[in-house]
């Protein structure tokens, strides 16, 4: 089972990132996209995959993939490892600062 990520929805372009078994549920990994951007991929306990931009907008560092996963109100989030702001994994919205969000990438397992 491979994890694939779409970095360009219009072009229907999918990149194979890695085998799903490389991810520990509750943690993430970083992937380099063909256009040079970085994505953070996560698996939750139920095996569902998520992908968001790896860049922490508060510090500029490419570290979100190294944050801890959590859930609140049934929705998964990742807490930045640097200053601990949380980001909803489905929408990319920061839960601690209304004005801030990160990009979200569609993912699938094939």
């Amino acid at each position: 089972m491979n994890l694939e990520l779409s970095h360009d929805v219009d072009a229907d372009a999918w990149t194979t990132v890695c085998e799903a078994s490389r991810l520990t549920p509750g943690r993430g990994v970083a992937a380099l996209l063909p256009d040079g951007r970085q994505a953070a991929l996560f698996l939750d306990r139920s095996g569902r995959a998520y992908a968001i931009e790896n860049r922490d907008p508060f510090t500029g560092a490419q570290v979100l993939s190294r944050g801890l996963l959590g859930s609140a109100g049934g929705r998964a989030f990742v807490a930045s490892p640097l200053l601990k702001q949380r980001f909803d994994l489905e929408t990319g919205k920061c839960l601690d600062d209304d004005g801030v969000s990160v990009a979200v990438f569609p993912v699938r397992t094939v």
Partner: protein
Amino acid sequence: MSTTPVHTPTVPTVVLVGHGMVGQRFLEALADRGVTERARVVVLCEEPRPAYDRVQLTSYFNGRTPEDLSMVENGFMEKYGIELYVGDPAESVDRAARTVTARSGQVFPYDTLVLATGSYPFVPPVPGKDARGCFVYRTIEDLLAIEEYAKTATTGAVVGGGLLGLEAAGALKGLGLDTHVVEFAPRLMPVQVDEGGGAALLRTIEQMGLTVHTGTGTQEVVTENGAVTGMRLSDGSEVATDMVVFSAGVRPRDQLARDCGLTVGERGGIAVDDTCRTSDPSVYAIGECALASDGRVYGLVAPGYEMALTVAAAIADEAEERSFTGADMSTKLKLLGVDVASFGDAHGTTEGCLDVVYSDSRSGVYKKLVVDGDGVLLGGVLVGDADSYGMLRPLTGSVPPVSPEQLVLPAGAGAPVALGPSALPDDAVICSCHNVTKHAISQCATLPEVKKCTKAGTGCGSCVKLIGQLLPEPADKGLCGCFSYTRTELYEITRTLRLTSFAELLDSHGRPEARGGEGCEVCKPTVGSILASLAPVIGAGGYILDGEQAALQDTNDHFLANMQRNGSYSVVPRIPGGEVTPEKLIVIGEVARDFGLYTKITGGQRIDLFGARVDQLPAIWTRLVDAGFESGHAYGKSLRTVKSCVGQTWCRYGVQDSVKMAIQLELRYRGLRSPHKLKSAVSGCARECAEAQSKDFGVIATANGWNLYVGGNGGATPRHADLLAQDLSDAELVRLIDRFLMFYIRTADRLERTSVWLERLEGGLDHLRDVVVHDSLGLCDELEALMAAHVADYQDEWAATLDDPERLRRFVSFVNAPDAPDPSVRFVPERDQIKPDLTVLTIGTMRAGTLEGV
């Protein structure tokens, strides 16, 4: 950043000139009042970026990016259909035709014009003031230019020893320059503080290594080939310097208003009335460019915000008319790390007023309160210790509930001051930046709520501590949103039920709504730590990164290194007791050199190597482990260091072998996971060179053995350790520490150091002594057994990681490109070593080359 909403000529138009702090507050107030729905709002912004937090400007040098400083929420302009023209200043106003012409040539008709053009830094007309190397300190662009120039400079001078001058001086010092401050007045911060306060400030600032010249003016900037080389002062002396920052006050930017014939004050400032209207009823002026009806120009942001609200209310046609007739000039700042505050009638200009002064030049503390004959507090100056500012300022204008003498005495001297936030009246202003009262704050339950609903605490931040004291204590003592149990309770549950997985614990003991979920960033590491410290007795895996445990660890534990601000890591090998052979030192030097790491001696008697990419960690540690080093657990909530003094072996005063004991203790407790980090030290005699009394457990040699101190803390709230037992033999000492640590691990809260835990422990030190010395709870056997299991089970985490290819696989920057380094982790030179390149991080998403071959 501009949008062009559909509008018809019949819609009234508001044009705002100047998008600074006050301009943005004004736009928010218009939006709040629904004005943006019925009017066209146009903003002309001169600077190349929308409004940002000028008050926090200096924090740029502490790593805040220009983006962090922005005051405009993403999408704000679009949401309210505001037209913002960035980098396009207003050039002229035609009041007869009611139009504003921008530099781009665009002409905007207006019904209401609001001027918020702020001020410009005043540069005294001295020869050489325009030379290369002369700067002002007002905008982000100014700071970028200063930062760039400072790279080639070694000395800097600031003209002006006021609030901004000292801030600029701090910045220059932070950039590594030898820094001078030249102030014309006989003391620093002449506007805010009095003579005594200025003297206290001077002493402290000189101790920091800045050179201060007061009572002297700048006569000339000396130049060579058009660049600054020095400064000639009015006392005839000369200061050699590579750059000069002028910070000699500001002047209102009223040129636009002058040019179109609006009334301006004799000494500048656009004259306005109580409602901030200028001499033309369709034109308002707010913020630092306005000359208020009380004849003053306010150079602080809070009065500007008041003016913004006044005008927004007038434009919105609010029934309740607001007015601005003057404001409080109170300030509290931390300048170069020194607290400075002044409020009310700080200089005692009220007729018949009296003052109460406390001054301690040893510690650089100076406090003065001004009261009237009836004891009404009129104002004050606080230097060196401004903790009471939050309480005192709101009490201004009333008779404080305790005497003024008690209010200036330091805590602990004389009678304790029983003055809590409850003493404040409901209408006391707690946040002066946003003019928020105690009553408004008491409507909220949490700090985030307060910030959201009232904006209190979002300005200078000096009121946040007091806000915290006003909020109710949370009724729910649960660890987090996932568990209603405390850490101690979870420890007991895990121990007695022998649960070995987080998921199991969450699904059986979590809050109903959290069961089946992921947990959160609070409970996962907490439970991870409990599982690690109980591993041998409950049968959980001893390696903290195997299986589910890997998902629980904070990022530092997950990579067995400390993450730094640019996503790189630091590496700290354990150096037990601070003792290290020359060979091992050489290996550290070689590793640092070969991997290009920044090297620093830590405050914990060992060496930190900074700037490793995640994919370099295994190679670095292979070299270190080969040379006999182990993980120093700088990343873990676990034992850090046991510092030692050289002790009896060498020192003429030593009475025991303190190094040997320190090494023994460090090796015994290394790797022990606990609620917070643990630190220790062993001194060879009562002179205490190892500072054992500031440690979680500290040991001091006596002629007969060892004294054990517990609950000490350095850090933010230092605490002297308490003596638990005296004259212990080696074995007695170790046994007592075993019990003490295990009792702490069992009963402390998450992130509670031993100092805080001991303060909280019912019965305090006596109870602790009963439990661990006299075994009053019959627990000691069990506590010792737990520690014995830990000692037997210990393995070096790095050696265990390097041994297992599966465990090593996580150490890559990219899962799909294991050999590609992360391009955002870059460094620039600093003092012959490196430091993180932070500008690279501000650029936004870095596009790396391409994914060749993947």
